């Protein structure tokens, strides 16, 4: 068994009375893409800052690439790449100049390496474009290039695809999969529930606590213990009221033009139909739905 790339044990960080990260423990193995999912302010970025050695833990420890992340932060940072959501790329420099500048920070001055990095992120041929002229999706690729110019073994991505459209997001993820296939380990934070589906394993964080970490499939099987139904009816509120009272219905919610319910395993469509019919609600259609990571999060958040 190879050693984990990240080994976090009871990691905690307090700011005054506020516990930003609360006894978090997890491991990330070589070549894995692990997602860190949670709302703004839940402690995702604080965790990454500790893993990069930018912030001292209040208690607990983090071993990253075999080094203590805080006491040996220089060794960690020489081997890890970091792409931040709020990363400053110089707008008045060209694509090439930005890469040369940041490469220099890591002591990389070989033009061939810069060229290779550009090819990796699909920006070859755009060397002389001013950064301010790039679309949001292409800026993100440049930011990724800057984060991997020193060939890190581990890459931290902090909300890398906020604000780009789904096409650019998918293109970006293709690059991430290519990097992972080359053996780079990736820890990516996101607050998009659907984006977490791209990861091998997903950790769910809320109020500083890591609530669970596993593959999307296992999370859904474990924390959405039932069948999802989507029920179309004109009488949404009456239908919701009836379903909330129906034994075996674990969760019922309004979803725009239909109702979405999660029922205990084994409870069939017929029970739902009868429950609605008994209160005079007519069903236009009822169909099985798929559980989502949002369902998982809602289950976990209830504690």
């Amino acid at each position, binding site marked *: 068994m190879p050693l984990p790339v990240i080994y976090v044990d009871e990691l905690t960080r307090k700011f005054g009375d506020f516990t930003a990260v609360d006894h978090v423990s997890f491991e990330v193995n070589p070549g894995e893409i692990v997602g860190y999912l949670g709302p703004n302010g839940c402690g995702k970025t604080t965790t990454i800052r500790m893993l990069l050695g930018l912030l001292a833990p209040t208690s607990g420890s983090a071993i990253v690439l075999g080094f203590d992340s805080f006491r040996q932060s220089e060794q960690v940072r020489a081997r890890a790449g970091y792409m931040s959501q709020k990363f400053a790329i110089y707008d008045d420099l060209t694509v090439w100049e930005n890469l040369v500048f940041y490469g220099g920070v890591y002591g990389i001055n070989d033009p061939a390496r810069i060229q290779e990095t550009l090819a990796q992120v699909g920006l070859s041929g755009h060397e002389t474009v001013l950064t301010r002229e790039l679309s949001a999706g292409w800026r993100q690729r440049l930011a990724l290039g800057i984060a991997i110019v020193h060939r890190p073994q581990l890459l931290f991505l902090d909300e890398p695809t906020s604000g*780009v459209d*789904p096409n650019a997001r998918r293109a970006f993820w*293709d690059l991430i999969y290519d990097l992972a296939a080359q053996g780079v380990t990736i820890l990516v934070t996101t607050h998009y529930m659907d984006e977490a589906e*791209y990861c091998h394993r997903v950790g769910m964080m809320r109020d500083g606590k890591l609530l669970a970490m596993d593959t999307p499939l296992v999370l859904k099987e474990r924390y959405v213990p039932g069948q999802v139904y989507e029920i179309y009816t004109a009488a949404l509120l009456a239908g919701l009221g009836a379903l909330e009272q129906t034994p075996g219905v674990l969760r019922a919610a*309004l*979803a*725009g033009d239909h109702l979405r319910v999660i029922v205990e395993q084994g409870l069939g469509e017929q029970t739902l139909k009868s429950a609605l019919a008994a209160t005079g609600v007519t069903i236009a259609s009822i169909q099985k739905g798929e559980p989502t990571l949002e369902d998982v999060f809602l289950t976990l*958040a209830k504690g």
Partner: protein
Amino acid sequence: MMAHVEARGLRKNFGHLAAVNALSLTIAPGEIYGLVGADGAGKTTTLRLICGALKPDAGEVSVCGFDLRRQTEQAREQIGYLSQRFSMYEDLTVLENIRFFAEVRGLRPDEWYPRSLEILEFVGLADFRDRFAGQLSGGMKQKLGLASALVTRPRVLLLDEPTTGVDPVTRQDFWQLIIHLVSTPTSDSPSIFGENGGSRRGVSVLISTPYMDEAARCHRVGFMKKGQLIVEGTPGELRARLEGRILELRGSPLTEIRHHAAEVPGVEDVQAFGDRLHLRVESGQAEAVMRRLPAQLQPMGVSIDALRPVPATLEDVFIAFS
């Protein structure tokens, strides 16, 4: 029934950039319309054109039958607008904040006070009316924003990315409020929706969001890209456009399968999702691909454990049609 919002041929340029370009949309009473797109696609500009905060370079908007250009006052009275960075006074209490926004909109004390109490009850902030806004949680601040937008009893609610970055629990609560607003018949709570609209349906809502999964909660969705609406419909209609064209594949090694699958005839697009792939196939080709792909790939030494049709997501739709 008269549309609550009717926008025709809207255009707005900022310098050389066409932020909104030839955009038309109609929102029916009681409808939740989701405007979905990336940052810079033109969502916020569209909302600002509809609420009258920006003047279009071309096109027109009417709100509940009032022309925004010629009957500006009447049109704007119909609208409640919650901007992306709603700013409240952190050193005022919840009730004082609502009072401030109500008075700015010209409501008298005998109007705003009873309404405020009722709206605070509706959004679940009744117990917090005397708390300073600065001491509210993120979700409560957002509800205060909604309450402030509702105090003038708008018939049209414009919400600019109200749920970006918030906790899914809060997001869920917020959506339940919005859906209650549009689906409650007016007679149930007359003073939120206006006293003289007995038979009128609830308010209509135009909401912008960067989240594809959130679009699924709207009655109708418009995808925006580069200032234009590129595709529009109910979530069901939109997904039906890709009916039978998305296949889920599980197997190993996935990286190798991903590269080879793209070359199988009939496969248009391959997307990796952690432990599985989604293939988009040409119309009518699903069964052929399900036969062809294992036959073509298995001799290469990869193992295909499962290949089955799955429902399309709205993200699949956006990608296929943009």
